[in-house]
């Protein structure tokens, strides 16, 4: 008998093994739902999958009577726009400040302690301030996401730039590179894979901040919808919405992983398959 740590599944078995827990979860849900319906035909807690499918199909294909929009897509669009803007500005902030902190000892001496302190502020505690300063519109939600994840990106990037061997920095200088050229051609490309990894890890927190902001003050969005229909115990909307948000986050994560491996193949050479 081989050791457990040496047993590697083949490609087919891998797919099967990946699907198995999902199938199991769905199966348990179906059982539970059927059980509750059998006891109480009006049960709202675990609606059957058919009911959720018809509700979500209606939300995705029939215009809303009040606003005239397709609710699911309008919510998704609004949320993704906020998320995209938030992640985008956070990445930009992370890149600029992270590279400056990592590359320039003067900047590091001046700002690293400040960044370390600022990154400890709980972003949700700032939400009331954001609402007061930026109003209840889009801006405050985007700013919350930026404030929530930019400090992590800044510190992660500064650390990964700082971890580039000094030999490479010296080598670049002996090849005639200026500070700017070293940042552009040595530090930035080597920091990019790590930035994308950090961004992947930030997707979860980004959604957390997005949905929190939407739950408190919004007129559309995935988080807004969930917290709106909560009043009617509409689990047939909430559960599919949660699944949809999860799927979006998962696809985003997967896309970033693929982009990182496609664009920076050299960074993943030693990766265990």
């Amino acid at each position: 008998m081989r050791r457990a740590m040496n047993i590697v599944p083949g490609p087919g078995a891998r797919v099967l093994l990946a699907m198995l827990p999902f199938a199991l979860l769905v199966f348990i849900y179906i059982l539970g739902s059927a059980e509750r319906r059998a006891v109480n035909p009006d049960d709202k807690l675990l609606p059957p999958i058919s009911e959720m499918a018809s509700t979500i199909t209606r939300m995705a294909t029939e215009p809303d009577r009040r606003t005239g929009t397709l609710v699911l897509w309008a919510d998704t669009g609004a949320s993704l726009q906020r998320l995209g803007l938030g992640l985008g500005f956070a990445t930009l902030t992370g890149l600029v400040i992270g590279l400056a902190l990592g590359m320039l000892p003067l900047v590091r001496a001046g700002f690293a302690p400040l960044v370390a302190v600022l990154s400890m502020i709980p972003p949700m505690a700032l939400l009331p301030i954001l609402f007061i300063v930026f109003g209840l519109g889009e801006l405050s939600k985007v700013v919350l996401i930026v404030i929530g994840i930019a400090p992590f990106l800044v510190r992660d990037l500064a650390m990964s730039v700082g971890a580039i061997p000094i030999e490479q920095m010296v080598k670049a200088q002996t090849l005639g590179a200026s500070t700017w050229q070293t940042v552009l051609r040595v530090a930035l490309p080597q920091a990019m894979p790590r930035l994308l990894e950090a961004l992947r890890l930030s997707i979860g927190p980004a959604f957390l901040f997005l949905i929190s902001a939407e739950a408190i003050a919004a007129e559309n969005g995935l988080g807004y919808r969930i917290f709106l229909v909560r009043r009617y115990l509409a689990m047939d909307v909430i559960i599919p919405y949660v699944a949809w948000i999860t799927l979006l986050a998962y696809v985003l994560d997967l896309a970033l992983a693929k982009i990182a491996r496609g664009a920076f193949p050299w960074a993943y050479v030693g990766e265990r398959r």
Partner: protein
Amino acid sequence: MSAIKVRDVWVEYGDQIVLESVNIDIASGAFVSVVGPSGCGKSTFLRMVLGQDRPTRGTLTLDGAPLPAEPGPDRGVVFQRYSVFPHLTVLGNVLASYEFAESPFLAKLFGARRRSALEKAKLLVDGVGLGPHANKYPSALSGGQQQRLAIAQALAKEPKVLLLDEPFGALDPGTRTQMHQLIKPLWREHGMTVIMVTHDLKEAFGLGTRLIALDKKRIDPQEPNRFGAHITYDLDLTRDGPVPVLGFSRPLDGGPSATSSSVRDGADLSARSNP
């Protein structure tokens, strides 16, 4: 021309004295091997010439002008590790040095200028025998191939001085011999001054035209950092030099040589300059 003068240089880190009163004139075009026990300041000496470290006292000049206190294109370097950029291909690594020079803002060349730089880069890559691997990333190269690349990269700038910090230390003996056969003609062809730090005495004697040994002149057991290293031996290894070279170039003539016995007595030969 690329003569280096080191005058009364001390390097101290806090209480620790690493180098003390180092004096040496290195002639233009010399190949200087630097040997000595671990931690005696060989690499510190090299980093000082490189501009990465600064002497606490003393002066270094290159062709009479003070050495800039930061690394620059006049001094190329090959480190033992991390010498090449892992995110660039072999060709890209060599191309980068042309791109730094010709494109100040983007550090990237396009069109005809890129093609002409690529041609120069290809010549260098072929010159160190990496032609078939031009489009690979360094991670796909062996240790020896990575060092070849680092050498090609350093040569792209046509530096006056080439600094080698245990460049072949991590290579197996066969590869090391190949690297010796590569570096010697390149040194002659480019007419650079080479300073090579090494642990391998055979390599030091085999490649160098001059060998300096760094060591502490005194060790105080209570205060091991009180005394720094200085040049204890300074040997001329040229063909007509006075030092018999461990069976490399000449047979010993006339019994045990005066130099080696005086060396054993701990005499300081550092004042002697190279012809």
